[in-house]
């Protein structure tokens, strides 16, 4: 073979090299047939390495490259672009996943992980020897988008997409838009209420001709792919039968912004549901909103003069499932504390925290609360506060790290459990769209830094708190980011599709019709070639599934990039 291959083995900043001896991998593959050069690199995806690769390809006239790094879901496009920039057809690049399927999967067995990585890289080299230059096919993409969830993230994304010229279906299961924010009072930084913010956005949505708002609507079915999703909707879900009606929309991309739920403490958790003046932060915010300004704050006919906030309830759990920080709750509790003082006069507030996380400019509110006389007590992670009721008095006891673990006791009129975010309990959208979830059970992006709004399902993006806890500003930022990515899928009206299609060997094909019958796209038809009846594949209709391959008794049909030569050469390497 006359191929000249370059092989790049990534350390991924330790994610691979901590568990795989990448130098040993390089040594093992550098003398493989067709390998002209083999290098290790700290970050294969880094700009400097990409430039080195381009230089290598051009200076050595490489006819193929193998990159051994993370999952191809993450960087396939990156290295295809490197190839293209260097003048190498991008289908001459082959990927070996030695992170998710070697270093991480076998992190407890360095020798085993290294051996596996060597095999995977050698198999990729074997495949690269047979790789051919291919040209992509193009398909029409619907210039419309479905946004599921009309909370602040969904609304902002819909306005952004509409401004970019896309038609938007904004789908909301409730009978009004705004999600959780619509019912909130002041939100950080404290100059506007959630209610007012949503009212303004509602006006903007009404003024956007390209936005079709569908409230009381849920998704019943979804089929198709990027560029051409068909979504069956059920309208008027709140009114029920017989008003329920169904309709189908056709969109090029889907943006999911289904939001979060507040953690509900279990019975007895810090006295919740057992002591009548223990409530959650959302319940407390309702109490503030509905209280009469200028008068004293009253709860269950009791005047509230002393309040204790207990932080991180349902978040940063040592024993529970929710290990993550919910990010917004420290600021929300401090904002609530400032609000009650502003609206109801002097109230003494005790904050029992695990360490306050008012990051960025939220720190200013923390300072303001401290100056106003709020007392902050930091309890140890493993020694949580105890709430009890003795003779009608609610007591809270905790050790304070800031006072050498001295025990602090406070008698209060109200205990507020600062509850965090948990994923939406309605799992229907995630199940229908087959969206993967992370360890925290929120929807998972492909990469939190490199592809933060894309999912592994092509054409589906995620935004806001369905992806993980976020404040309002962070939700809006992620929504705008998802909107731009979504727009890129539909803006051109066409998408480049993979040129990986089936083809027949007319010399050996004796038309029997089995491949045509197996094809779900009617892409194979009977045709006459040089006086012989054979099967011919329509390249624009073929989607490259390969369903036609195993049914051909004469083995006359192959799939580009998955030919017998490519697959069987990989099998031989891996079996050794």
């Amino acid at each position, binding site marked *: 073979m006359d191929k000249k291959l370059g092989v790049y083995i990534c350390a991924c900043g330790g994610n691979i090299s901590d568990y795989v001896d990448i130098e040993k991998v390089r040594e093992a593959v550098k003398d493989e047939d067709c390998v002209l050069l083999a290098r290790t690199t700290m970050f294969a995806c880094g700009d400097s390495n990409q430039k080195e690769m381009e230089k290598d390809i051009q200076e050595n006239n490489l006819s193929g490259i193998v990159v051994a790094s993370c999952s191809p879901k993450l960087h396939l496009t990156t290295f295809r672009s490197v190839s293209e920039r260097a003048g190498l057809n991008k289908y001459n690049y082959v990927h070996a996943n030695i992170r*998710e399927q070697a*270093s*991480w*999967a076998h992190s407890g067995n360095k020798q085993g992980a290294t051996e596996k990585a060597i095999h*995977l890289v050698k198999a990729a080299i074997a495949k690269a020897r047979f790789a051919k230059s291919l040209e992509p096919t193009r398909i029409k993409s619907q210039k419309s988008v479905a946004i599921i969830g009309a909370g602040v993230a969904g609304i902002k994304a819909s306005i952004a997409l509409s401004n970019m010229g896309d038609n938007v279906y904004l789908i909301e299961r409730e009978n009004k838009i705004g999600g959780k924010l619509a019912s909130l009072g002041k939100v950080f930084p404290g100059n506007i209420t959630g209610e007012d913010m949503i009212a303004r956005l509602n006006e903007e949505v009404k003024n956007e001709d390209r936005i079709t708002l569908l409230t009381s609507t849920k998704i019943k079915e979804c089929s198709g792919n990027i560029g051409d999703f068909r979504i069956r909707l059920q309208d008027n879900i709140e009114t029920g039968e017989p008003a329920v009606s169904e309709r189908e929309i056709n969109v090029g991309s889907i943006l999911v912004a289904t939001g979060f739920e507040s953690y509900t403490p279990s019975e007895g958790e810090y006295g919740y549901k057992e002591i009548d003046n223990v409530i959650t932060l959302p319940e407390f915010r309702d109490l503030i909103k509905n209280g009469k300004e200028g008068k004293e704050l009253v709860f269950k006919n009791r005047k509230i003069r002393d309040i204790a906030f207990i932080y991180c309830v349902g978040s940063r759990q040592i024993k529970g499932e929710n290990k993550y920080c919910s990010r917004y709750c420290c600021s929300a509790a401090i904002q609530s504390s400032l609000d009650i003082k502003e609206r109801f006069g002097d109230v003494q507030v005790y904050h029992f925290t695990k360490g306050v996380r008012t990051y960025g400019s939220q720190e200013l509110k923390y300072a303001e609360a401290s100056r106003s006389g709020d007392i902050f007590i930091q309890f140890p992670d493993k020694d949580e506060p105890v709430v009890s009721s003795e003779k009608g008095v609610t007591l809270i006891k905790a050790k304070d790290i800031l006072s050498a673990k001295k025990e602090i006791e406070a008698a209060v009129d109200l205990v507020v459990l600062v509850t965090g975010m948990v994923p939406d309990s309605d799992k229907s959208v995630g199940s229908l769209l087959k969206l993967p*979830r992370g360890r925290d059970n929120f929807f998972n992006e492909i990469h939190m830094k490199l592809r933060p709004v894309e999912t*592994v399902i092509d054409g589906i993006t995620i935004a806001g708190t369905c992806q993980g806890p976020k404040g309002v500003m962070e939700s809006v930022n992620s929504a705008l980011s998802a909107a731009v990515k979504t727009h890129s899928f539909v803006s051109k009206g066409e998408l480049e599709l993979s040129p990986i299609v089936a083809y027949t060997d007319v010399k050996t094909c004796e038309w029997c019709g089995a491949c045509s019958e197996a094809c779900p796209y009617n892409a194979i038809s009977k045709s006459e070639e040089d006086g012989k009846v054979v099967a011919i594949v329509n390249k624009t209709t073929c989607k490259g599934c*390969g369903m036609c391959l195993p049914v051909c008794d004469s083995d006359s049909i192959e799939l580009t990039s998955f030919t017998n030569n490519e697959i069987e050469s990989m*099998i031989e390497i891996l079996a*050794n």
Partner: protein
Amino acid sequence: MVSQAKILVFSTEKISDPAIDMAGLLKLHYPPQVYTIAIPCSSGVKPRWILKALEKGFDGVFIAADGSDCSHGESCTEKTGAIVGKTHNLMKEKGIDPARLKMAALCSVCSESFVKQIRSFNEYLLKSKNS
């Protein structure tokens, strides 16, 4: 006494491969002698590839099928099942234990299921290999 079986997994690029990747991400360990070749759809696995793998030294072949999640149509489960049936017959003809080829539907988030299936397949293959 062999402690690990060598297994070839045919996974699919959009459905089961993300699940296998996620198993790695979640550090759900499985034997390192499990190798994956990703293809577009489980209905596209040729019986000759399976036989080649078994003849070249793999103890078992596992098809991580798309099942009802397949974006290429509902017939995928049936078609992958037909490939397995056809290959089982070919294996019997060659005197190969048909249980060395296993198929299970694996969705894009079925990481735990993948690890469970692979561990149990590994145990079966080891047991029959060492017996």
